[in-house]
């Protein structure tokens, strides 16, 4: 089955055509998981790629992500109960003392678009809240954002809290935010650094060995 029209509609951010195409594919006997993987997630892969190359811009990316969300909603009833497979569970949040959420929200949207299931803890998240949620959800990845030099050390504290609770080996840690650098990520013992939403997806896939 070809998903070209669906791919184009998601990339363009045309909600109406995309949801119609999603349901059309279902009616034609398409498997819901295939439609998700080869249609919607594939479209968002292309969007992410174009975004990192500077060929698409933030508002276009948001529009595509919104379109995908609507398609997923339309597709959900066609999965047998809880059969939708996820690429992995990611806990995400802006660290304690920091209220910046724009970058974190962009990262969340692109990770969702790539087929991960996301638990967004919001802003001003203390280390123990990250740890508790990672434990409870058995998360595969933790994504932390900080936009201030004064709140970056909270990333270190969170990683230390993961070590202390014995969870460090169960979860990969990605950090980002304007003042954060690759070197800082290495220094504090994070597994990876993502300077933008597109690379957050690539890094998450790399860490979990997903092609």
């Amino acid at each position, binding site marked *: 089955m070809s998903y070209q029209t669906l791919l184009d509609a998601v990339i363009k951010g045309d909600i109406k055509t995309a949801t119609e195409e999603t349901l059309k594919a279902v009616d034609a006997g398409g498997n819901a998981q295939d439609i998700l993987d080869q249609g919607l997630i594939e479209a968002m892969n292309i969007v992410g790629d174009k975004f990192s190359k500077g060929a698409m811009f*933030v*508002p276009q990316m948001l529009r595509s992500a919104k379109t995908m969300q609507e398609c997923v909603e339309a597709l959900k009833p066609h999965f047998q109960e809880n059969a939708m497979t996820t690429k992995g569970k990611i806990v995400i949040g802006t660290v304690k*003392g920091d209220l910046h959420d*724009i970058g974190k929200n962009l990262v969340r949207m692109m990770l969702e678009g790539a087929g991960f299931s996301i638990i967004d803890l919001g802003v001003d998240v203390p280390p123990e809240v990250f740890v508790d949620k990672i434990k409870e959800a058995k998360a595969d990845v933790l994504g932390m954002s900080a936009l201030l030099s004064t709140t970056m050390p909270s990333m270190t504290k969170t990683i230390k809290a993961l070590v202390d609770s014995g969870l460090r080996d169960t979860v990969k840690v990605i950090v980002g935010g304007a*003042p954060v650098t690759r070197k800082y990520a290495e220094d504090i013992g994070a597994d990876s650094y993502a300077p933008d939403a597109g690379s957050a997806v690539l890094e998450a896939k790399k860490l979990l060995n997903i092609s």
Partner: protein
Amino acid sequence: MLIVGENINTSRRGIAEAVEKQDAEFIVQAAKNQADAGADFIDVNAGTFVDRETEYLCWLVKTVQDAVDLPLCLDSPSPDALSEAIKHHRGEPMINSISLEKDRFDAMLPIVTAQPCRIVALCMTETAMPVTIQERVQAAGELIHRLTAEGVAPTNIYIDPLVQPVSVDTRMGNAVLGAIKTIMNDFPGVNTICGLSNISYGLPMRRLINSTFLSLCILQGLSAAILDPTDKRLMANLLSTRMILGKDEYCADFIDAYQNGILIKD
């Protein structure tokens, strides 16, 4: 219109390298270029060096003021870095910044009231970034109330309405413009200040967007801007906007800039 030159910030690669190598000459040149281009204050920010921010910020203060006779805008969210940097500053600095988040306000208040200085106050609410005009104006009112209660002169307060990208939410431009207008109208004597580049995050042609945004901010009464004064096109836009809005008597600033070669592109 007060101009704060933004170029000495360690989030810029050249500056970060110069600071690490303690290359005073490079920093002095960046400061002089901005002073020559019309900066009233030179911003210094070493925020990317988390562990050495205080040390580097103090070094920047000394290095810049050794070469340029201008006050500085000491730019850090860290009370420790600011209180140390102030000790090395000559004249009255601008301190960037204080906000209503409880810990930050309490830690910053004794620092900004210890000596005469201009204070940049961010329109953050206590628990979130502001979205609407109303949230910004409310935060501004609270900041002004609490600062003046501690003896700060309204004219030393610079409210930053917090510019956020229109790429993420197309209401963000109007939210800031409306807030500037209301704050300038409701709180006589108080100033408004903002940076420009956040508005264009995630979009192409960012310099054009920043420049257009600056004009609209000036129209609403913005009293100070944090920008790159060596960007000649931006400065030409600033000067012509002020002139058209009747803020430049006899068009003198615009003509002077032209005759001094500041408006010529490159």
